[in-house]
Each structure stands twice: as C-alpha cells, then as structure tokens.
C-alpha cells in the first residue's frame, strides 16, 4: 500500500500529499478516497501531490489524478503535481495530449409516457415490417409458382428432412405418451359408468382435432421455429443476408420460402403421425386396462371421427405451421448485429409462436363449437 503523508498548511490553506510506494490498481481506491476527502475540505484551497517518493504509477493512478483535478477545478480549487519522475511525466503527458472525452451530462431519465410511446412505436414498426415480409413472401411464392424463379436446388428436400424426418422420434414418443395418458384418464372415468369402450371416441376425436396438431406445433416451435430464428439471426450478424441482397438474390426466396414450404408440408404430416401414434397408445392402454379389443377400439374411432374432423385438424396444422414460420422468419430477419439479439429472437420466436398457436386454437374451438362441428 502507498503511504500518503498529508500535511495541511493553515496559512496557505494548501494540503501537501507525499506519495510513497506504487500508485497502481490495488492501491488506487484508497488514494482516490484520500485525495477526494482533501478536495472536499472547506479549509483546503489547493492540494499538492508530491510524487518524489512514488514508485510505479499506472492508468488507475493517472485516472485518480485526473478525476481529482477535474473535481477541484469545478469548485475553484487547484491540484498541483510535484516531484514527477520521467516515467510519471511521460504517462501524464500522453494522457494530456490524448484528449480524454468529458463525462457526458446526466441524461434525463425516460418517463413512463415516453417508454409507453417508444414501445407502441416499436410494435407499429414491427407490424409494418411483418406486413412487408408477408407481401414479399406472397410475391416470391407467386414468382416460384409461375416458374419465373425457382427455389434453391435441393433446399426444400433438405428442410423437409431436417424438420420432418429428424423430428419423427420425438413426435412419436410424445404422441404415444399423450395417447396413453389420455387413455388412462378416460378409462378410469368411463369404465366407472360401464362405458369403457367409449374411450376410443374420446381419444380419436381429441387426438385428431386438438392434441395431434397442438402438440406437434409446440414441438416444432421449440425445435424448428427456434432453429430458423437462430439461423437467420446468425446469418444477419455474419452479413450473409446482406451478401445475398448485394448479389441481387432475394433472401426471402432463398432462405425463407424453402423453410416455410417445408413447414407447410411437415407440420400436418407430423400431426397426422402423432395422431395415429397417440391413438395406438390409447388402444394399447384400453386393451390392457379394460380389455377393449383393438378391432373394437379402431371401429369406434373410425365411426366417430369424420372427414370433417380430419380437415379441422389438418387445417389448424397448416395455420400453426404458418404462425411458426412467419414468427421465426420475422424475428430472425429483424435480428441486429449482436449476439444477444440472436438469443432474444430465438426466445421470442418460441414465446410468440406458442401464444398465437394457443390463441388461434381457442378461437377456432370456440367458433367450431358455436357452429356445431
């Protein structure tokens, strides 16, 4: 620790601080406190810091000196440095000539109304960008549909493989578990009233209309939506999207359309797969728990579930696919050039997609029930 011997001359109201030892990071805090204390004393008009006995002075020491100097100058006091060695002088001169920027004036804190206003403007801007993106997707889809432009070779198959085939095990596992759980619940309740075989009706309908599409959508949100947002965000950070734009290649057609098209195929397909696996799981539990033969179970499912129910489930699956795809594309493309932004885009994709999936499901279920289907 540096020893700072202090002497205050009452006549000249000048404090003299004689430094001993190094003024470096481990000792700077104590020295800062001591000099600041002197600078604030009413009976001190000036401070003389004597470096004759000082050892090494690093940036922290220089920062302490310049801070105290500025503080004293503001209150009309002065700080004088004496006994400077060659190295001390060189370091101080270097800083003096570098022109350190002044501390900015305190920024007035943003008020509540301004924060709300900024937030609303942010949402309006995001909405505008989303509409522009949807229009561009529509335009690029038309270009591809009319064969004026093509999707990148092999991109659609690759995306379907990544989003669909690779997701089969997890969808099968969760679909099967969901079907068995539903069956256990139904069996316990319905068997009590002698209506155990109606568990097939319950499982068939709920898997086809609700759980198949919904569960698959949530898996795809976490697995595929998040991946799309992270991929696009990382590409944005690495200027890959800018590179496409400067080449005159539409990033929407090159990057987004294959993903959106793949999702449109994959989500309903996986939903159907999850539905059948779920029904099979339910069939197994019904057979084991209350001895409903598989044939009877299947007949009841086929009898109860109509083509309309299938269309309902498939329609919702396509809607969910577009919710996931658009959310991931929009948020991924809006990523700014920093790593946190990629993480935010990924997280928000999952949260926003799940929110809208459940919202759309609730709205559709309400209208369907009002319409009697």
């Amino acid at each position: 620790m540096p020893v700072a011997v202090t002497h205050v001359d009452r006549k000249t109201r000048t404090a003299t601080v004689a430094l001993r030892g190094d003024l470096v990071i481990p000792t700077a805090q104590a020295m800062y406190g001591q000099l600041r204390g002197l600078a604030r004393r009413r009976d001190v008009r000036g401070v003389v810091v004597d470096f004759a006995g000082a050892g090494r002075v690093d940036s922290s020491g220089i920062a302490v000196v310049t801070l105290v100097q500025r503080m004293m100058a503001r209150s009309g006091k002065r700080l004088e440095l004496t006994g400077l060695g060659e190295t001390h002088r060189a370091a101080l001169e270097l800083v003096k000539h570098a022109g350190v920027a002044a501390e900015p004036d305190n920024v007035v804190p943003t008020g509540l109304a301004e924060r709300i206003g900024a937030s609303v403007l942010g949402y309006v801007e995001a909405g505008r960008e989303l509409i522009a993106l949807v229009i561009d997707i529509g335009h690029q889809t038309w270009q591809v549909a009319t064969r004026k432009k093509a999707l990148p070779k092999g991109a659609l198959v690759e995306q379907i493989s990544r989003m669909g085939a690779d997701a089969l095990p997890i969808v099968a596992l969760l679909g099967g578990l969901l079907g068995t759980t539903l069956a256990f619940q139904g069996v316990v309740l319905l068997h009590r009233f002698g209506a155990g075989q109606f568990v097939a009706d319950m499982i068939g309908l709920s898997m086809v209309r609700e759980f198949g599409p919904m569960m698959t959508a949530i898996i795809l949100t976490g697995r595929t939506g998040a991946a799309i947002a992270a991929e696009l965000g990382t590409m944005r950070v690495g200027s890959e999207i800018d590179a496409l734009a400067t080449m005159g290649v539409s990033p929407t057609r090159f990057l987004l359309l294959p993903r959106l098209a793949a999702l449109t195929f994959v989500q309903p397909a996986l939903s159907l797969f999850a539905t059948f696996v779920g029904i099979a799981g339910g069939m197994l539990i019904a057979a084991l728990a209350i001895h409903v033969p598989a044939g009877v179970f299947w007949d009841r499912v086929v009898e109860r579930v109509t083509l309309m129910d299938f269309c309902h489930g498939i329609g919702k699956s396509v809607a969910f696919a577009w919710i996931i795809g658009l959310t991931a594309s929009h948020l991924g493309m809006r990523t700014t050039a920093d790593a946190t932004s990629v993480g935010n885009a990924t997280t928000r994709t999952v949260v926003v997609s799940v929110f809208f999936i459940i919202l759309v499901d609730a709205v559709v279920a309400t209208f369907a029930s009002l319409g009697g289907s």
Partner: protein
Amino acid sequence: MSDVLLACRDVSVGYDDAPVLAHVDLEIHRGEIVTLLGGSGCGKTTLLRAITGLLPPLAGTVTLLDHDMYAQSDDDRRALLRRTGMAFQQDALFSAMTVIDNVALPLRELTKLPETVISEMARIKLALVGLPGLEHRQPASLSGGQRKRAALARASILDPEIIFCDEPSAGLDPIVAAELDDTLRQFRDALGVTIVIVTHELASIRAIADRAIMFGDGRVMATGTVAELEDSADQGVYNFFHARAS
C-alpha cells in the same frame, strides 16, 4: 525480476497431434516490440494461442513472466494472464455492450475500484487509442479500424506488462494502420509495455518492430532486427521481405 518476459523452449504447437510449428525457441525481453511474422498458415497465430494460454503446446515449455504457464493451476494461470493483454484479430468485442463497457469489463470483473475511477480509466484508454467521444457507441457502429482500437484499449486496460496483438493492422487502410502502429509505440514508450505482434504486414513490421522472428516450413526461420532479416542470406526470408514468390 527477470528481463525475459516470455520464453518458449523447444515448443511444438499444432492441432490433433500434428505440429504446425516444431522446436520453437524464442525469448521476448521487457520493453521490446517484437513481431512474429511469416506467410499465411505458417503457424504464428497458433503459437500465439499457445503463448496466451488458449492452446496447450504439443511439446516444450512456455514461460510467461517467470512462470511455466502450463504447469500452473487454472487459477494461477488466470492470475498470470491478467498481467497480459490480448487484442484479437477479429477484435472480439462484446456486441451487446457499448464501447466503454467493453473496455471497462476487465476492471469491473477483476478489481474493486470505484465506478468513477473505472470509467475514467476506460476514457483515458479510449483517448490513448484515438477514440475519444465514441464511448457510448455499439461496436457494430464502428469502422474496422475503430473496432481494432477499442480492442487494443480493452487489452491494455489492466496495464499489462505484455500485450499480444494478432494481426492488428489486417484489413486497415495504410493511414489507419500507421496510426495504430504509432499508438502501439506510444504504449511501449510511455507506459513501458512489452508488445508482441503477429503480422505479415511489411509496412507495419518496418515501422515498429525492434526485433522480428520469422516462421516458415514449420520452424523458426530467422530472428533479428528487421534490417538484419531484410538482408538475410536465407532465400525464404529474403523473398518474404522483398515480396517475391519463391
């Protein structure tokens, strides 16, 4: 305290047991500006990674500030590395932080200095590298040269005894590159910092290097002052300095 800040003894570096450089012996002395140079892929950056604790050498010992770096515990090695600074080729600034927060990060994490002193130190370092007034900008809004300067400010914020710079002037225009060389020289002259620069920029080597160590063919090809290397009898070294294909 020894005058030799860094020594490599029979060091081999590489990946997957395949050495890129073998049997490297070198010493860096206090207060020197030394350039490690050579053509692309010669292993100079790989050696720098070994020197800075990022890649254990395949063989040999790296002695940094009188300590065998890879014989230290993790905590001791970290303490040793705090006495050094590293400016990466791709600047490695944290994109989500402002410039001043990037520069102040080591102080906030590793010292108990008051925030006013930390902030002042960061401002001083940013002024020294020629970036006053850009404290509250995000790294993404800076030019390549400004980002390299900010990275140098961060590397020097703890007043290290030795600063390593990986390709500091790569991708910069000659004027900005020369300014960066001046800044490095000022750091050495005024603050007494030892500087090790990995580069293959001839203008930069000629401008600031007290000594150069040249690598090629998986070994140290030559060591000496820039003038000595420029007149080297070794054809590979001569060709490098006179920009001739061998």
